[in-house]
């Protein structure tokens, strides 16, 4: 862990055109301060890998509304009509991935696997262009790893060395995304002294976190 950043410094670190994994599920467990900072610095041409694009005015929806996003790899955009409109008019390209496949592709990218075989998507549009592998008489799609330049995470608690703990349904994609980017930036609801998060409660070990946002004022 390289120390605490202001949201603005973090947003400046993320160049236009960068690929970002952004944690969260309909905005729950999303790094809202980082998102606001990206909107504030007028980020452009981002690729976003995320479960969904939340809704207009909330979470990743703010990036969509601001026109910051060029490409999305996601499982669901049904609750954000702006993403759907952007897709139809061509300002945003969208790659739809089944949710369980999305999380495994991210995990594979973070954990050094060359891919995983899943039955999900067999015989559907998701199959198009993918290799089908037979194992013991059953067929599976070969799904390949995903990685990004940055992962943007939101934790309930962080400690001074960067260990993260999450709360209830705010876990979602945070633990896997923590492994799958070149640079990992996290924000936390509270930052506590080392030792306050006991080893068994750490969900993302500090060694994965490059930067922590300084505490919210």
């Amino acid at each position, binding site marked *: 862990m390289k120390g605490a950043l202001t949201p603005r410094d973090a947003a400046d670190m993320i160049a236009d055109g960068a690929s970002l994994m952004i944690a969260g*599920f*309909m*905005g*729950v*467990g999303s790094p809202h301060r980082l998102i606001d900072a990206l909107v504030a610095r007028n980020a452009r041409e981002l690729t976003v890998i995320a*479960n*969904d694009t*939340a*809704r207009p005015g909330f979470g990743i929806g703010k990036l969509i509304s601001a026109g910051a996003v060029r490409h999305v790899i*996601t*499982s*669901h*955009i*049904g*609750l954000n009509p702006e993403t*759907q409109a952007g*897709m139809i008019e061509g300002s945003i390209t*969208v790659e*739809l991935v*089944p*949710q*369980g*496949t999305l*999380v*495994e592709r991210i*995990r594979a990218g973070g954990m050094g696997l060359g891919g995983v075989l*899943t*039955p*999900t*998507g*067999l*015989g*559907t*549009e*998701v199959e198009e262009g993918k290799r089908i592998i037979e194992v013991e008489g059953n067929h599976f799609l070969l799904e390949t790893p995903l990685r990004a330049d940055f992962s943007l995470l939101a934790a*309930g608690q962080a400690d001074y060395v960067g260990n993260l703990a*999450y*709360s*209830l*349904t*705010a*876990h*979602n*994609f*945070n*633990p*896997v995304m923590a492994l799958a980017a070149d640079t990992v930036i996290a924000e936390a609801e509270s930052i506590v002294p080392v030792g306050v998060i006991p080893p068994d409660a750490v*969900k993302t070990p500090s060694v994965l976190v490059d930067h922590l946002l300084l505490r919210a004022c």
Partner: protein
Amino acid sequence: MDTKELIARRVAQEILPGMLVNLGIGLPSMVANYVPAERGVFFQAENGVIGLGARPPEGMEDPNLTDAGGGFVSAVPGAASIDSAMSFGLIRGGHLDMTVLGGLEVDESGHLANWKVPGKMVPGMGGAMDLVTGAARVVVAMQHSARGKSKIVRKCSLPLTALRRVDMVVTDLAVIVPSPAGLILRERAPGVSIEAIREATEAALVVPDEVPEMGFDA
């Protein structure tokens, strides 16, 4: 009883003690209202909680505890938080006893389409493809028709959610069980005739000698 309540109550009867059940957004989520707490059922939401409970009292909502639609929920005693990898490990790995999903079309092969209307509505599959592929039992809860058009069709015209045959379809008119021999009409909604169901259904139905009315205790 309105048609949504009828569907939700009938689906609730399929949920046995101790099951782990995933309920989709919308109509399926209403099913929980008709499953008595003493049945010891755990509801899972794919966003990462096992043991989803009712909406909390006003002012007690936790922004870090919602259902898959983003609505505030609570957690029952014995609940567990899980991340997305574990959530879909449970789903795809066959640990989920039942999923209840909405549908756009179900066809004579028992195939479900529920994630895309090309050129019109592209919400994305979310967790639906994994749920239909992996859950031990897949129940579709939907209205029998939309804008006068049967949603029980000969062959899905919309993109499929999975190749797996769903196990049961519950509509405001009927309970239908897809099988290798086709769609079996198992139950009628109260006061609805077999003829009326046939008329409202594009797909061919296999009709046994006995097609009882759905039964409701209350």
